[in-house]
C-alpha cells in the first residue's frame, strides 16, 4: 500500500522526542519534508539531522508550549520555509500532574491551546493543499479512567471533542481531521520509563491492566498515526482511533 506521502510537507508539534518524534521520523522516511517544535534545542538538532538523513528538508524551532506567539510563529515559519503545508500533527503535551490547580492552566495552554493555535495558523496553507490532514494526538486516558483525576486526562478529552467538530467543519474545505489516542507508551526518556523506576507501584498497576502485558512502543503508535495522517486514509474523517494494545475496557459502538 502506498501511503502517498512522498513530497508532502508535514509539521509535528512536540516532534523532538517520544511519540511525536517517531511520527515525524516515519513521515520523513516516507518522504515528507518535516518541521517540528519542542522545548529543548539539543533534542531538536538531533532530530532534525536524523530526518535529513532521509533526503528530505527538515527544520525545528525551540518554543515554550505556553507561549502562544511562539507556537504561532513556528507554524507561520514552517509554512514559509517549507513553502506550504499538507499535514499537521498536534502532539505537544505537558504531561500529567496532580494536586495543583496550576496543572489545569498548564495542560490548557500546552496540550489544548498549542493545538488550536497551530491549527488556526496552518489553516490557510492546508486549505490550499490537495492532501490536507490534521491529526490530533490525545490519550487513552481521556476515554478510560486512569491513574488519578487530573487536568491532563480531562484536557485531552477536550481535544477529542474539538477534533470531531473540527473534522465536520473542515471536511468541506478538503481538510481531513482525525484523532488518535495512544495508551501507555514506553520509550527512552518516557515518563513511564521514570515511573517504572521511581514509582514502581503505579507502573505495575498500569501494566496489570494491560492485556498485552507490556506497554506500547513509540513506533507502534507512530505507524497508526502516519496512516491516519496520510492520503491513504482518505475516507477517515473525524475518526478517533485508540492505539493502546487493548488497554481500554469500554466498548466503542
Amino acid at each position, binding site marked *: 500500500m502506498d501511503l502517498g506521502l512522498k513530497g508532502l510537507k508535514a509539521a509535528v508539534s512536540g516532534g523532538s522526542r517520544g511519540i511525536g518524534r517517531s511520527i515525524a521520523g516515519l513521515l520523513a522516511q516516507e518522504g515528507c519534508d518535516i518541521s517540528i517544535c519542542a522545548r529543548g534545542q539539543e533534542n531538536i538538532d538531533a532530530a532534525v539531522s536524523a530526518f535529513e538523513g532521509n533526503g528530505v528538508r527538515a527544520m525545528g524551532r525551540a518554543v515554550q508550549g505556553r507561549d502562544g506567539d511562539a507556537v504561532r510563529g513556528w507554524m507561520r515559519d514552517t509554512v514559509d520555509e517549507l513553502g506550504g503545508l499538507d499535514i499537521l500533527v498536534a502532539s505537544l503535551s505537558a504531561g500529567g500532574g496532580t494536586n*495543583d*490547580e496550576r*496543572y489545569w492552566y498548564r495542560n490548557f495552554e500546552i496540550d489544548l491551546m498549542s493545538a488550536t493555535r497551530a491549527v488556526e495558523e496552518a489553516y490557510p496553507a492546508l486549505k490550499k493543499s490537495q492532501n490536507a490532514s490534521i491529526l490530533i494526538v490525545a490519550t487513552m486516558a481521556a476515554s478510560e479512567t486512569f491513574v488519578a483525576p487530573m487536568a491532563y486526562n480531562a484536557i485531552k478529552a477536550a481535544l477529542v471533542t474539538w477534533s470531531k467538530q473540527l473534522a465536520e467543519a473542515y471536511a468541506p474545505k478538503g481538510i481531513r481531521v482525525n484523532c488518535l489516542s495512544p495508551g501507555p507508551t514506553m520509550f527512552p526518556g*518516557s515518563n513511564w*520509563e*521514570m515511573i517504572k523506576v*521511581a514509582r514502581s507501584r503505579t507502573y505495575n498497576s498500569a501494566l496489570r491492566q494491560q492485556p498485552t502485558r507490556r506497554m506500547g512502543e513509540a513506533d507502534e503508535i507512530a505507524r497508526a498515526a502516519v496512516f491516519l495522517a496520510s492520503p491513504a486514509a482518505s475516507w477517515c474523517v473525524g475518526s478517533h482511533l485508540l492505539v493502546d494494545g487493548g488497554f481500554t475496557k469500554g466498548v466503542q459502538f
Partner: protein
Amino acid sequence: MTVHRIKPGDFTKTPIDKTENPDLGTNMIPKQRYIAPDFMRKEWERMWTKVWLWGCASQDIEEPGDYLVTSIGKEEILLTRQPDGSVRGFYNVCPHRGNRVMVGQGNATTFRCNYHHWEYKLSGEFENLPDIETFPQGAPPCGGLTPVKAEEWNGFVFFSLNPDAGPLRDYLDPLCEHLEPYHFDRMVKVIDWTVEWDCNWKTSVDAFNEAYHVQGIHPELLYFIEDKHIQIDTYERHNRYLIPFSTISHRVNETTEIPHLIKHAMQEAGMDPADFDGRVSEVRVALQKYKREHGPEMGLDYSDLNDEQLTDDYHYMIFPNITMNTHADDLMLFRQRPHETDPDKMYFDVQMFKLLRTDEERPRKPRNERFKHGERSMGLVIDQDAANLPGVQQGMHSAAYEGLWLGDQELRIRHFHKVLMDYVGED
C-alpha cells in the same frame, strides 16, 4: 547533560576544593574486622576509648540540670548541662555497687542512684550518701561520679573516654570550617530513633559512605540525585562526598514530567512545579535561585551557604561513626554504635533536625524511640538500607567470602579503614 557545579571564586564559606585522592591501594579489606570478637575488642581498647564521640544535641540538654544518658559499647555516659551553661559528662555508674545512676533523659537538681539513694550534684560530686557513718573506710576516694571529657560544637555535645584527648575542634579539623555555615544550632530536632540492626556498626557506616549502591537498592533516587559523578574528599580522619540533589542521574534519560521527588523539593521551597517551564535538568539551578531569593522572606537564613548547598547533599562522615546528610533546611544525622558484646549487632541512631520557617510552629521535642529493624518504617530509603544490611553481615561469615573488594566509587570506605587501622594498628 552536565550538572552545574559552583566554581572556585564563587561564594562559599564551606571549602569546595577537591582534595587529591590518597593512594590507598586496591587491597581487599579483611572481613574479620566486621565479624571477629578479637577485632571488636581491639577496636574498643584502641579506638572507641581514644576518639571524640557524638553524644547528643545541645538542645537535648538545653537547661541547667537537663541530662541525657547515651551509651557506647559497654559504657553508659551521663551528659548534663551545668548552671554556668557548660556541659559535663560522667560514666553513668554509681561507685557504690555499680548500678546505673540515671535512665533516659530529663531534668534533675541532683542525680540519685535508685538502689541506695547515693546522690550526686550536677557537677558529679557526692551530695548525700545515706548512713555514711556505717562506712568505716569513708566515701570512695573518687569523690563522686567519674568524669569523661565533654565539649560542645555547633549545636552538638561530644564526649571522649580518653582523659588525654586533645581539644574537640582539633579532632574535628577541618570540618568545623566546613559545617559551621549550616548553623545546626538553629535547627530543631524532629526525629530521635534508635534501631537495633543485625550487622556490625561498620557495615552500616560503609552503606552510607558510597553512592554506588543507589543504582542497586535505591533505584527511585536515580530520578532525584546524581549518584555517579560526585566529588569525594578525604581528610585526616574524616571524609565527605558532594551529591547533587534535585536533578537526575546520568544513568537515566531525562523525562518531560518532573520526577515526584524533585517536585516535592520544589514544593517544600514554595516553588510551583506546575509553573516551571524549564527542563528537568534545569530545575536544580532554578531551585537554588528561588531559595536564595525567597528564603529570607520565609525566615530561612541561607546567607552562609553557597548556591549548591541550597539543593545538594554535602554528605560528611565524622570518624568513627557519624554520617551527616547536610542540607540547607535540614540535617539527617546517623550515629552507628557498636553492640555491647556482639560484632554482628549494632545500634543505629537517627536524628533529624529541621530549620523552621517563621510561620512554622516548633514541634514537640521528640523523645528517643527505640525499636528493632522491621518493627516500623523509617521511610523508604533507610528501610531499603536496613533491609539489606543483615544479608551483608550474614554473607561476611561465609567460607566463600574473604573481604571487601572495593572500587573507586567506594574510596571513602577505604579511607575510613585507613583511619580505623591508624588507631587499631593490626588486624
